[in-house]
């Protein structure tokens, strides 16, 4: 079965998204959660680039991917900074300790 490059990329996208979700739901460490987020964003980037390639509009795909990279880097930075501050103030990075709701 000949897979077009686009289909291969789509498999990669779906796989990365799935792995990212798994990591988000499983991890108890805040920094690990940021790592999982990053993996999901890599998947999105791959999808954008592959779509641009398949459509013949790679310039458009790159522009959008650039915006996503900037946004995602800032998210990573903020997440890490939050993690550091939480570790300092509350003493723990465990997700279970970070809830004060009584539900």
């Amino acid at each position, binding site marked *: 079965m000949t897979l077009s490059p686009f289909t291969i990329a789509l498999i990669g996208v779906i796989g990365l998204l799935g792995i990212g979700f798994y990591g988000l739901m499983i991890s*108890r460490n805040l920094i690990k959660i940021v790592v999982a987020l990053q993996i999901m964003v890599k998947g999105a980037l791959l999808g954008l680039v592959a779509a641009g390639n398949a459509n*013949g509009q790679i310039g458009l795909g790159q522009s959008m991917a650039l915006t996503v990279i900037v946004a995602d880097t800032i998210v990573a930075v903020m997440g890490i900074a939050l993690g550091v501050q939480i570790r300092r103030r509350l003493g723990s990075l465990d997700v279970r300790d970070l809830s004060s709701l009584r539900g």
Partner: protein
Amino acid sequence: MLTLLLVAILLIFAIQAIRARALITSALWLAGVSALSSVLFYSYGAHLVAVIELSVGAGLVTVLFVFAINIAGDDAIQAQSVPPWTLVTALVALFVLLLGWFVLGVPVVAPVSPVAEAPLSVILWQARGLDLMVQVVLIFSGVLGLLGLLAEAEAPLKGSMAAEVAARRDREMQTLDSQILQIEDVRK
């Protein structure tokens, strides 16, 4: 063929990043994911994004992670995950299956007459100029947020809350004082 191999290794790296016990290992596997996806981007013709992804994703973000792990400590949390493992796996499997079925059935229609695309710089600066402004705003707000987040001193409280907090502190000081006096009395 090569692309398929690269994607397969990419997925393996990602799984390893999630499964790693120590945080440093996880960050290093993430760097590997970034590097591999950079190679993939290049192979799809997105040269600019490949370079940026390599320097930002594999470079900057990894350095940040290492820095944060140094500050925050590398205690790996061994306990059970909060939602049960079976539920998570089932959800992810269902999601992957549905998405695959939905997406892979889409026929890819290449443009009938491949329109000569404008050079990248034109697209970036003119057609998507607004995106660039958004990026500037994002970076600016990110820097501001970071400064606020990493501020050491507590912000001064405003108005009535300050009065309440001050009153509470006074009461606590008084109880402490009376306790000290009691201890001194006992000692005498």
